[in-house]
């Protein structure tokens, strides 16, 4: 390595002090003139190249939440009071007490843009990143989920992107030994060129294992461990190189990051063993902004300083500059703070797991983040200025011009199926649309069995995993989001996303406890998008308060748009619930003939943004279904009691496609037909998407007790018929065999994507 040359060319703190006029490529690094000036003011001089690199990544939208932070505060400000929250917003992931000395942590995060550029690696590294967030809390990652949205199913680009994304999630998650317990798959033209790839990870720990990202204790060592640092994800830094050295010096930089799930698996086991041995004072994952982020956040959280020798960082590419090392987003790395006396034991455990580990610096009492490069000082900043004092913008927001017209164009003029035969055709059309077709083509690529704790996974409403074998303690998780509802009304749409995820968790018999969210939106510089964003955040925060479930963490993804066209506002909401005994969890399929079928909740004519309007008529307009949070809460309480008392055999929530689709799904999954009669307008009962509804199969003999429970809980219950028979028979309207339903449902995704 040409040490002298590298050191000679580097921009030092001393040099910066005496060359205030040197032009710096702040704009190419994504900083505004105002932000650049602010950096100069904070430092009292111009930044060095390395400092500029740090601020540019730490103050990016992605890391600083500069457009969203002012609004995200509502999640904390309006959060319902709860004793269950051991760590909340602001940590790598929120931590929730679930009893028996266990706590769980979970978070959802986006990897949208990288997954469009290179679907396989983009999605794979998305899983890797969120798993490290969970690991950084001291938890063992125990399950993953994925919420996916693509352009039209038949579009050539979807054929490129979808199989790659699913393959990447499968590759990375399976190789880590994390069961995939659920997720989402949606198609809409608005996601062409902007697929949404949101990955969720769930972790579990004993209370005492909780770790925080903090660098306390002067003299403690800073250890970087995991993969080597390479020139990944440093597009911006090459600007610095060419500005400093007149170009031509920097080697070709990769356009994508490649994940190494094997290293991540070793990193997980290694971290858990280090944590169990009590060898870590602080722990942080390296994600976006890499070493810049890890060092400045660790030091800022502790209010300490840190001295880092950048030339100690093991490199995959020796031509990397100091700024590039600071910005590199190389995967599968963690940073720990370790007492000097523990370093050798720490290293021994890393060696046993074949995880490279290097001491790169020390905690200091200076309150400064000081970075050196071959003996020269290249960074000297107050870490909190990078980590916590980024710009905060109140961006202008305006209700979009076409919003009233959109809301005025309701679905009431759409032609409705009138006869039994037409109702039957409508059901088949919905079931055989890519939007509602069987997801097995995707979910069969995911291992849901590994670890032996998965009680429910796809196609059930919620994923359920056991935490504790003796007691049966476990958790349920579901994610939901409906871009069409949010496009029509982002405030209500975000609440409906929460309501649906909450309902899915309740359908398993679990008690909903906490919320994570991934807010996928267009450009915050577009006032219409900003309006959608603020409406959604406000709606979600309000609904969380009403339902009594706090937001514990999440992620914002802006700039999901092609040119001027933004995606539908798409907040994806994950709800976590707890089950005292997973042996009482409810599946979503009908397996026992003779069970009574009961519809819970009440149905109104609600077709705005519905699957029927979208799939049959290609129509989007009007208003989404009414949000009924009190009814959701009552429903969840009834379900929880009924599951505990063993009154139910199955429960399936009603959402896209209404009762008709729910019936078909529950019948197909369990291999049983059903006979039902509809007390009212068949079309409305079958296809409306009113919320706060669920379909349940009552355990034979428990009908009376269940009816009493519903009555006491204020939940309307309508007996529709019974489970059993060769197909779905709707009295007086139509019947359709399971075979015909299965064929319509199951061949769709294989035919599209098995090429």
């Amino acid at each position, binding site marked *: 390595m040409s040490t002298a040359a590298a050191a000679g060319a580097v921009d030092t703190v001393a040099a910066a002090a005496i060359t205030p006029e040197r032009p710096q490529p702040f704009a190419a690094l994504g900083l505004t003139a105002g932000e650049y000036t602010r950096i100069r003011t904070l430092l009292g001089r111009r930044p060095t190249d390395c400092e500029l690199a740090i601020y540019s990544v730490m103050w990016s939208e992605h890391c600083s939440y500069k457009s969203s932070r002012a609004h995200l505060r509502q999640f904390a400000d309006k959060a319902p009071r709860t004793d269950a929250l051991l760590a909340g917003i602001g940590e790598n992931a929120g931590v929730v007490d679930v009893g028996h000395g266990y706590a769980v942590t979970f978070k959802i995060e986006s990897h949208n843009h990288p997954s469009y550029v290179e679907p396989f690696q983009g999605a794979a590294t998305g899983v890797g990143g969120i798993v490290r967030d969970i690991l950084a809390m001291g938890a063992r990652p125990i399950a993953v989920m994925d919420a996916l949205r693509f352009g039209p199913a038949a579009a050539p680009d979807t054929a490129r992107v979808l199989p790659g994304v699913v393959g990447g999630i499968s590759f990375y998650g399976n190789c880590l030994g994390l069961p995939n317990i659920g997720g989402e798959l949606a198609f809409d033209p608005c996601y062409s060129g902007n697929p949404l790839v949101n990955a969720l990870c769930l972790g579990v720990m004993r209370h005492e294992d909780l770790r925080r990202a903090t660098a306390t204790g002067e003299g403690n060592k800073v250890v970087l461990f995991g993969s080597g640092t390479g020139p990944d994800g440093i597009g911006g830094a090459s600007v610095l190189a060419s500005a400093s050295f007149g170009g031509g010096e920097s*080697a*070709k*930089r*990769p356009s*994508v990051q490649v994940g*190494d799930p094997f290293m991540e698996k070793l990193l997980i086991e290694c971290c858990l063993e280090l944590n169990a041995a009590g060898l870590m004072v602080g722990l942080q994952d390296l994600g976006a902004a890499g070493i810049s982020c890890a060092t400045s956040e660790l030091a800022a959280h502790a209010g300490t300083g840190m001295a880092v020798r950048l030339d100690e960082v093991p490199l995959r590419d020796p031509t990397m500059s100091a700024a590039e090392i600071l910005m590199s987003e190389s995967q599968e790395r963690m940073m720990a703070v370790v007492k000097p006396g523990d370093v050798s034991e720490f290293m021994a455990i890393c060696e046993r797991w074949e995880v490279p580990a290097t001491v790169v610096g020390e905690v200091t009492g200076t309150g400064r983040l000081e970075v050196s490069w071959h003996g020269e000082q290249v960074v000297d900043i107050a870490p909190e200025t990078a980590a916590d004092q980024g710009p905060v913008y109140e961006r202008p927001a305006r209700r979009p011009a076409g919003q009233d017209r959109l809301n005025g164009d309701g679905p009431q003029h759409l032609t409705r199926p009138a006869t039994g035969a037409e109702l039957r055709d409508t059901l088949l059309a919905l079931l055989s649309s890519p939007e509602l077709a069987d997801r097995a083509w995707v979910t069969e690529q995911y291992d849901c069995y590994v670890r032996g704790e998965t009680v429910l996974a796809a196609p059930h409403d919620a994923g359920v995993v056991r935490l504790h074998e003796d007691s049966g303690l476990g958790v349920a998780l579901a994610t939901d989001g409906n871009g069409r509802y949010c496009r029509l009304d982002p405030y209500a749409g975000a609440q409906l996303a929460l309501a649906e995820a909450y309902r899915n968790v309740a359908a398993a018999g679990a008690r909903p406890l906490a919320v994570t969210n991934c807010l996928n939106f267009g450009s915050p510089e577009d006032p219409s998008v900003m309006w959608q964003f603020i409406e959604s955040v406000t709606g979600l925060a309000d609904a969380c308060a009403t339902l009594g479930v706090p937001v514990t963490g999440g992620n914002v993804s802006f700039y999901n748009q092609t040119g001027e066209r933004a995606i539908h506002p798409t907040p994806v909401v994950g709800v976590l619930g707890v089950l005292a005994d997973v042996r009482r969890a409810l599946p979503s399929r009908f397996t026992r003939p003779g069970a009574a079928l009961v519809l819970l909740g009440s149905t109104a004519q609600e077709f705005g943004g519905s699957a029927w309007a979208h799939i049959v008529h290609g129509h989007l307009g009007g208003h989404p279904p009414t949000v009924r949070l009190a009814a959701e809460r009552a429903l969840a309480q009834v379900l929880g009691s009924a599951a505990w008392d063993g009154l139910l055999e199955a429960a399936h929530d009603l959402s896209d496609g209404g009762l008709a689709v729910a019936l078909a799904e529950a019948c197909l999954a369990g291999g049983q037909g059903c006979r039902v009669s509809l007390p009212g307008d068949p079309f409305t009962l079958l296809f409306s998407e009113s919320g706060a509804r669920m379909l349940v199969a009552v355990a034979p003999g428990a009908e009376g007790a269940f009816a009493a429970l519903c009555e006491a809980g204020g939940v309307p219950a309508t007996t529709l018929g019974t489970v059993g028979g060769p197909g779905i028979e709707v009295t007086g309207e139509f019947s359709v065999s399971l075979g015909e339903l299965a064929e319509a449902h199951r061949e769709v995704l294989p035919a599209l994507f098995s090429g």
Partner: protein
Amino acid sequence: MTEGGQVTRIIVDVMPKPEIHDPQGQAVARACQRLGFGEVTGVRQGKRFEVELAGPADDSALARVRELAAELLANPVTEQFTVRED
């Protein structure tokens, strides 16, 4: 494979681009070291396809296979390929 007629065999080598992280090659290199092949300083692992075509081995056959490689056999974002006659 084919009944009569001319058969041409074209080789397509697909390798990870040099600037792209290759954890697989690194793992193989580490395994070499452990097995006592200490002189191995690096390994990159790629794919090799032998494509059999009906018809003569002319420029148009090569061009077609190049098209095929770009579309199916290699991932243009992370891999590079070479096409040649066997």
